[in-house]
C-alpha cells in the first residue's frame, strides 16, 4: 500500500493529537509538545502542520468550545481519524519489526 508520507514533526504532532484524545487544539498541542518533548516551536508551525495533517486525512476537526479566556472565540478541536491511527500503528509496527532485526551487539555503545 502506498502510504502518504508522514514527516517526523508531523508524526509527533499526530501523536500529540492522539494523546490529547479529543481535547487537541492549537494551544493544548503546543503545550503538550513542550511538556513531553521539551521542544519550543512557533505557533505557526503547529497551525500549519495541523492543517496539513487534515488535508492528508490523518485528523479531522470541528469548531467548538468557546471560553472567556479566548475572548469568546471558538477553538478548532482536532481528533485522529481511523486512517490516522492505522498509519501510526503501521509506523509503530514497522519500527518494532525493524528493531527485531537489529543484532543486539550493534547497538551497544562501545566501552559500556
Amino acid at each position, binding site marked *: 500500500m502506498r502510504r502518504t508520507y508522514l514527516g517526523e514533526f508531523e508524526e509527533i504532532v499526530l501523536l500529540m493529537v492522539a494523546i490529547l484524545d479529543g481535547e487537541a*487544539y492549537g494551544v493544548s498541542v503546543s*503545550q503538550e509538545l513542550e511538556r513531553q518533548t521539551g521542544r519550543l516551536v*512557533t*505557533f505557526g508551525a503547529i*497551525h*500549519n502542520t495541523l*492543517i496539513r495533517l487534515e488535508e492528508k486525512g490523518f485528523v479531522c476537526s470541528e469548531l467548538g468550545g468557546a471560553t472567556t*479566556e*479566548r475572548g469568546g*472565540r471558538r477553538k478548532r478541536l482536532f481528533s485522529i481519524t481511523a486512517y490516522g491511527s492505522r498509519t501510526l500503528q503501521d509506523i509503530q509496527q514497522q519500527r518494532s519489526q525493524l528493531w527485531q532485526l537489529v543484532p543486539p551487539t550493534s547497538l551497544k555503545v562501545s566501552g559500556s
Partner: protein
Amino acid sequence: MKSPTPPRWAQRLLTWLHPADTLEEVEGDLQELYTYWYQQSGKRQATLRYLLNVLSVLPPFVRQRKRKEDFYQPYLLSPDMIRNYLKIAFRNLWLNKLYSLLNLTGLSVGLAASVLILLWVQNELSFDDYHHQADQTFRVTNTLKVSDEPWVWSNSPLMLGEAALREVPGIERVTQFKKPWQALAFRINNDLRSEENAAFVDSTWFASFDYHFLLGDPKRALDEPNSIVLTESKAQNWFGEPAAAMGKMVRLDSLDMVVRAVVRDNPPNSSFRYDVLLSNVQNRERSHDENWNNFNYQLFLQLKAGTQPEKIGQQLTQLYHTYKKDSSITASLIPLRDIHFNTTFQSDSLPKGNRRTVTTLGLVGLLILIIASINYVNLATALTSQRAKEVGVKKIIGAGRKRLFAQFMTESTLLTLLALGLALAIIRLCLPLFNNFTGHQFTLDFQNGTLWLLLLGSIGLTILLSGVYPSLLLSSLEPVKVLKGGNVLSSKNTHFRQGLVIVQFTISIILIVSTIVIFQQLRFAQTQDPGYQREHVFTFQMPYSAGASTPNNRDFIKHRLRELHGVVGVTSANQSIVDLQSKHSGSLKWEGRPEEYEPTVAQFSVEPETRSVLGLNLAQGRWFQEDMKLDTANVILNETAVKTLGLKAPVVGQWFEFQGRRGQVIGVVKDFHFRSYHQKIEPMVLFYNPGWQMQVFARISPGAAARLLAEAERIWHERYPETPFRYTFLDESFDRLYQAERKAGQLFNVFANIAILISCLGLFGLATFSAERRTKEIGVRKVLGASVTSIISLLSRDFVILVLIALALATPVAWYAMHQWLQDFAYRIDIEWWVFVLAGTLAVGIALLTVSFQSVKAALMNPVKSLRSE
C-alpha cells in the same frame, strides 16, 4: 480577574493579514497562549513571544486551509465553461436585440473609423522606416546665412557627393537623386506620356534603399548608362503588364532607354514616390551640374558604424570652403527617418507630414473608439437590473466572482469580435475612398504585421474599455440583496453613466466646433479678396530644357493666343501669382538705406499687360509701359515694401537699385496675397524683365474654356511637339493652397458625424431603457391627467441637461484648440460666440430628436396597457 491583553496593533495586524477562514481559532489560540505565557514568565516575555508567534501565522509563513469542496467546480476556463459562456452570451445578445444592434452598429462604425485613421497615423509615423539601413542613412542639409533669415536647402551640388566619398572618412556609400524641374515626356510606342514622378538616381540607389525587385537584377539594374527602372503599376500602365516591360525601349527626347528592372510599387510610407527611376548618367543637364554652384541633388550618405554625423557635417562644410571658396554655407546631416516631419526646408521635393495633424488625428481616432466603448458600458450597466436576478441565482448555485466576470467579459468580447467583422467589411468598402482621400495606397493585406498589430490593439483596447467595468459591476452584485428585490443599483452608478454620456457629447461638440471653424476659415480664404483676379485665367509654364529659343517661342505662343476669339488678355511673369516663391536678397539699394540692412524681398517679373490680365490695383504712380524703354530698369513696390524698407514720401520718383540696375520707383501697387493666407504679405519688388518670364497667363471670357484650351494645346504643339501641354487655372491652384486644411476639414466633418452618430446610438439605447423602466410611472401620470407634452419633457429633460453640461465643458477646450489651429494663419477669422451656440443647438437638437423618438412613443401609449401588465 481581567485577563491580560496582548498589544492591540499586533492583534489588528493579525486580523488584517491572516486568512479569514482560520482567523477566529488562531486569534483565540494566541490569546490563550498569551495568558499562559504571561502567567509563566511575565509581560515582557509574553509580548515578545506573542509577536513572534503572530509573525509565524502571517503570510507568507501561514498555510491556507483548503476550502472543503462540496460540489464539483470546473476550472475557470475549461472548455465546458467557455461553451457555457458563449451560449449565455449569444442568448443574451439575441434577447436584447435592439441594444445589441445599437452596440454592434456603434462599435463597428467606431472601430472602422479608428482603424482607418490609425492606419494612416501609423503610416506617417513610420516614414522611411523600412529601409534596413535607415539608421545609418542621412541627408545633407545646406544652410545659407543671408540677411536675417537663413535659407535651408535640401539640395546639394553634384560635386559634393563625389568629394565627400573621396575625402571624408567614415562614409560607406553615397547616393543622390535629382528630380527634374518639369515632368519628363516619354515616347512609348509612339505614345507621348508625361511623367511627373520620375527621378534621376545614382547606380548606388538600389544598394542604399530597399526595393523589392520583381524582374531584373537588383545589383546591376542601373549599371549601364541607358537604363530605366519602373514600378509595377507604371510598367502595367505603359506596357500592359510588368513582364512585357522588360527590355523594352523608351524614348526620352532623343535618347533611347531600356527597361532593366521592374520593382514593386513604393510603399505608402516611402518618401521616394518615383515610379520611373533613370540612370543619372544620361541626365542631359549633368554637364551643367558638374559645378559647385548648382544645388540640384538630394545627397544621401550612409555612414560606417560608429561615425558621428556632426563630424561629417563639419567636414562637408570644410569641403565647401576648399572647393567652393564660400564660407557662408554650413552643411549638416539629417537622419533619413526625420526628413518626413522636418519642415524647415525651403522647397523640399519629398512629401512632408505635419506632426501636429498626425497627433491630432491619432487622438481623434482614439476618442472615437472611446465613444463607441462608452455606449457598450452604458447599455450594459443600464441593463444591470435585468441581469441582477441571473447573477444572484448563479452565485447561489455556486458561481464564483471570477466565473461571472469571465462570462460578462465573454459577452463583450463576442460583441466586439462581431463588430470587428462588420468593421472589416466597412473598411473594405471605404478603402478606395480613403485611398483617394489620402493619396496613399493602403490595402487590407492580412500578411502585413502592422495591420494585425493595429487590429489587435484596437480590439484589445475596446474590450478593455467596454468590458471590464460592466463585468466588475455585474459580478459584484450580492445575491441576497438581489433576490430580496429592490433597487440593486446605487445612484453612484447612474451618475457614472451620466458622466460617460457627458464625455461622449463633449467630444462630439468639440469635433463639431472644430469642423465649423475650419470651414469658416476656408470660406474666409475663399471669399477674401486676394488683391488680384483669379477667375477665368489659365496659366502654363514654358519648358526650361528648350534653351535659347524659349523667349521666342513664348512670344509666338502669346501672340497666337491673343488672336483667338474669347481671349481677353495674355501676359507672362516669372512665376504664378498664386504661390510666388521667388525671393531675392543682397542687391537692393535706395535712398536712406541703413548700412548692413539687407532685406529679403519677393520678386515678381511682370510686363505692361500683367496689370490688366491679373487685375492688380495701383495705390500711387503708374504701371510699366510698352513705350517707355527705361522701364526695364524701373521698379514698382508693394505697400508693404514701402513700409518695411522705410522709403520716405514721396515714394514715386525715388531712385532704386535692384539686381544691379538703377532706375526709379514708378509706382506703388496695392498689397495682394501672392502666397497663402498662412503667411503675411512680404515686401515685394515688381520689375520688368522679359527674359525672366516663363509663366504665361491668359484671361478668357467665361464659357469659352473648353474650346480655347484645345486651341492653346494645338498652338503649343506647333512649337513643342514632344512636350505635353499642361495648364492650370488660377482659381484651382488657389484652392490647392488650402488643400491640407480642406482635407482636415472634411476629415473632422466625417469624424464629428461619426462621433455624433455613435453618441446618439448610445443615447437612444439609454432613452429606450429609461422609457421602458418608467412605463408604469408614465401610466399613472397619464391617468392622473398629465399631458403628452409634460411627459415628453419629463423624459427628455435629463438627457438635455447632460448635453448642456457637455457643451459647457467642450466650449473652452474647443476654443483653445481652434485658437491654436488658427495661429497657423497670418490672416484669420475670429472665433465667434455663435459657433458654440450653433454647435450646442445642433447637439441638443440631435439629442432631443433621438430621445423624443422614445419619449413620444412612451407618452402616447395607452395607460391601460401599461398599468394592466403586472
